[in-house]
C-alpha cells in the first residue's frame, strides 16, 4: 500500500475506475478516469458489460416479427420507441400501409413513452446531483404512464406491443379516458418540477457552464436528440424527416439557448427534456382528438413477412436521439442483417471530448445530462 501511495504522490495523478458498480453510471458503464486531485485529465469509457448480441440474435430469428421483443431490450426505458423504429423499417421494406387508427395509437404510445423516459432521465439527473426528492416525484408520474401501458399491453417495461403492420391488440377501453386524465394532471406537475429543480440555485450552479458541448463538436460527433438540441441545433426527426403521422401535428422543437450559462451546457440539455415533455403533451392531445374510434388494429398484420431482396435504413426520434435500423434482406423469412444505430452509443463517444478539466462531481453531472442507457450502448 505504501508503494502505491508514494507512486501517486510522485506522479500527482491517479487512475480511478468509475463503475461498473458505481451508483451514478446509469447501469454498467465503466469510466477510467485519470485524476489530478479531483480534476479529470482523461476519460476512457469502457463498454460491453451489457452486451447481449442483439444484432446476431436478430439474424438468427426465423421471422422478422420475432425481433421486436429484442428491440424492447435495447433501450429498456423507452421500449415503445424502439419498437416503433423497427416496425416502420420493416413496413417500409414490405411497402405496406398501416391503418389510420394504428398510426394514432403508435404516436400516442411513443409520446407517452417519451415523457416516461424523460421523467426517468430528469429524475436520475437530479439524483446524481444529490437531489433525492425530485427523483421520486418523477417516478410518481412515470408510474401513471406505466399503469396506462400495463392496462393495454399487459407489461410495464418491455411491452412487445407494436407489430409489423399493426398492433398486437387493441387498446384497453379505458385508454382514452386514462390518457386524457393523465395529460390534465401532468401539466401542473411540470411546473412543480421546475420550481423544485430547474430554478434551484444550487442546481443551476452545478449544471450551468458544465460539460459545454459546442454546436460544431456535437455535429461532428453525430449527436442527435436532446443532446444536439441542447447545443442549439433545431433538429428533430419528427419534424425534419417525418415518419408515421408526425407531419399532422402542431408542435415546436425546444432548443437550448444558453439561458443560465454557455450554450450547450448540462442545464441546456436538461431543460430541453423538460420542454419536450410539454410538446409531447401537445401531440398526445391532438392525437387523442384525431384518433378514429373504430378500426381493427390487427387486420393489417401480414401473415407472411418476406421483404424483397435489398437494404434499407429507417430512422426515428427516440427520447435519446436518432435511432436507426439498417436492415438487409435476402428474401428469406429472417433478416440477413439488422444493425441498430443507437444514439446513446454515439453520445457516449462525446464524453472524453466534453469532460476534460471537469471535476469528478461534474463528470456525474455530464453523464447524467447526456442520459445514456447502457442497454442501448451495448445492445
Amino acid at each position, binding site marked *: 500500500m505504501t508503494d502505491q501511495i508514494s507512486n501517486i504522490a510522485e506522479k500527482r495523478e491517479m487512475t*480511478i475506475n468509475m463503475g461498473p458498480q458505481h451508483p451514478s453510471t446509469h447501469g454498467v458503464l465503466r469510466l477510467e478516469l485519470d485524476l489530478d486531485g479531483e480534476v479529470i485529465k482523461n476519460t476512457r469509457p469502457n463498454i460491453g458489460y451489457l452486451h447481449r448480441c442483439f444484432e446476431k440474435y436478430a439474424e438468427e430469428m426465423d421471422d422478422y416479427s420475432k425481433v421486436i421483443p429484442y428491440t424492447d431490450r435495447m433501450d429498456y426505458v423507452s421500449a415503445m420507441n424502439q419498437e416503433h423504429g423497427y416496425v416502420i423499417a420493416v413496413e417500409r421494406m414490405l411497402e405496406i400501409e398501416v391503418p389510420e387508427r394504428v398510426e394514432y395509437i403508435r404516436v400516442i404510445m411513443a409520446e407517452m413513452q417519451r415523457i416516461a423516459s424523460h421523467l426517468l432521465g430528469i429524475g436520475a439527473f437530479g439524483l446524481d446531483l444529490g437531489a433525492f*426528492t425530485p427523483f421520486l416525484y418523477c417516478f*410518481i408520474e412515470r408510474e401513471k404512464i406505466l399503469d396506462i401501458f400495463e392496462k393495454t399491453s399487459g407489461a410495464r417495461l418491455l411491452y412487445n406491443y407494436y407489430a409489423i403492420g399493426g398492433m398486437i391488440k387493441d387498446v384497453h377501453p379505458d385508454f382514452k379516458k386514462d390518457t386524457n386524465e393523465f395529460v390534465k394532471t401532468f401539466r401542473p406537475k411540470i411546473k412543480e418540477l421546475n420550481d*423544485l429543480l430547474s430554478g434551484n440555485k*444550487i442546481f443551476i450552479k452545478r449544471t450551468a457552464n458544465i460539460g459545454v458541448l459546442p454546436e460544431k463538436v456535437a455535429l461532428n460527433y453525430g449527436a442527435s436528440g436532446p443532446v444536439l438540441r441542447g447545443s442549439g441545433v433545431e433538429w428533430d426527426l419528427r419534424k425534419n424527416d417525418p415518419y408515421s403521422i408526425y407531419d399532422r401535428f402542431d408542435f415546436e422543437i425546444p432548443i437550448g439557448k444558453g439561458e443560465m450559462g454557455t450554450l450547450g451546457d448540462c442545464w441546456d440539455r436538461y431543460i430541453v427534456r423538460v420542454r419536450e415533455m410539454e410538446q409531447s403533451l401537445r401531440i398526445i392531445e391532438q392525437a387523442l382528438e384525431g384518433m378514429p374510434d373504430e378500426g381493427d388494429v390487427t387486420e393489417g398484420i401480414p401473415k407472411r413477412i418476406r421483404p424483397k431482396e435489398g437494404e434499407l435504413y429507417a430512422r426515428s426520434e427516440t427520447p435519446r436521439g436518432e435511432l436507426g435500423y439498417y436492415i438487409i434482406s435476402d428474401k428469406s423469412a429472417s433478416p440477413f442483417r439488422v444493425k441498430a444505430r443507437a444514439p446513446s452509443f454515439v453520445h457516449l463517444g462525446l464524453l472524453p471530448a466534453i469532460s476534460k478539466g471537469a471535476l*469528478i*462531481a461534474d463528470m456525474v453531472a455530464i453523464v447524467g445530462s447526456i442520459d445514456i442507457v447502457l442497454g442501448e450502448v451495448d445492445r
Partner: protein
Amino acid sequence: MINFAANTTYTLPILVHAAVPLTIIVVYALVAIWGERKVAGFIQDRLGPMHVGRWHGWAQSIADLLKLLQKEDIVPKDASRFLFKFAPFMMFAASYAAFAVIPFSSGYIGSNINIGVFYLLAVTSLLTLSIIMAAWASNNKWSLLGGMRSAAQMVSYEVPTIATVLTVIVVAGSLNLMTITEMQAGNDILGFLPNWLIFQNPFLIVAFIIFFISILAEAHRVPFDLPESESELVAGYQTEYSGIRWAMFMLAEYADMLLLSLLGAVLFFGGWNSPFGDFMSGPFWEFFWFMLKGLLLVFVMMWIRWTLPRYRVDQLMHICWGILIPLSFINLVLVALWEVIF
C-alpha cells in the same frame, strides 16, 4: 494517573455521567433515524417505514440495528487493520465526549467546567482525524477522495463556526455553557419575548444563520454532504465499511448532528430555559425544552436534506472562504461595537 477503580468515590459519578449522555444519544439516534425516514417519506409523498412494530414502523431502526449486528465483519485485504477497526469508534468517541459539557437542564451537566465551549470545539475536531483515518486505512481510492474532501471541508468550516461562537461569547462574557444558559432566563424583551441571545441583538441573528450553515457542513448534511456523496464517491470514507462499524459511523454522525444542534440551542435559543417564563419550568421540563429546541434544529437539517441538491467541492470552499468567513468576522466586530454602545 488516578486509579479510578480503587477510588470508589469517583467511580460511580463517572459511570453515571458516562451513562446519561450515552442513553440520550442511543435513544435519540434510534428515534432520529426512524424520524428521518418518516420525514423523507412525507416530503416525497410516501409513507416511510410502516410495518415493523405495527404502529407506523416504530421499531424499524431497532430491526436495522439488529441486522447490522448480524452482518459479516469484513476488513479489506490490504487495509491497515488497526486503524480501520479503530476509526469508527474514535469518531463516535469524539462526538460522545463533547456531550460532557452540554447542560441538559439546570440540574444536570456532565462536567460544569469554565471552558466548556472551548472543550467542545476542541474535542469535535477529532472527528476530522477519525474520518481521514478511516479513509486512509480502507486503501480505497474513493475512500481517500472522500477523506480528503472531508478534511478540507471540516477544517474550513470550523473557522466560521468558531467565529460565530466567539460572537456569542462576546455578548455572554463566558465560556461556560451553563452560565450562558442561565443568563438567558426570563421574558423581558418587548415585554414577552424570552431573553434568548438571538433576540438580544440583531447581529446575532446573522450570526445564527452563519452558524447554522457551518454546522450543516460540519455535520456533513446536504447540501454539504460531499465526503459521503453517494452519487459521486460511492460512499466516501465509508465505502469499505459494513456491519457494526458502519453503524458506528452512522451513530457518530447522528450524535454529531444532535451535538451541534444542542450547541446552537444553548448559544442562541436559551438552552433549557422555557419559552414561557416560569410556565413548565423545573429540571424535567427544562430537559424537555432543551431537547425540543435541539430536535427542531435537527428537523430543519432533515428538511433541507430532502429538498436541496448538493454543492460541488470548490463551490463549497468558495462559500466558506469567500462569504462566510469574512461575514462572520465583520459580524463579530459589529456585535462587539453594539455591546460597547448599548
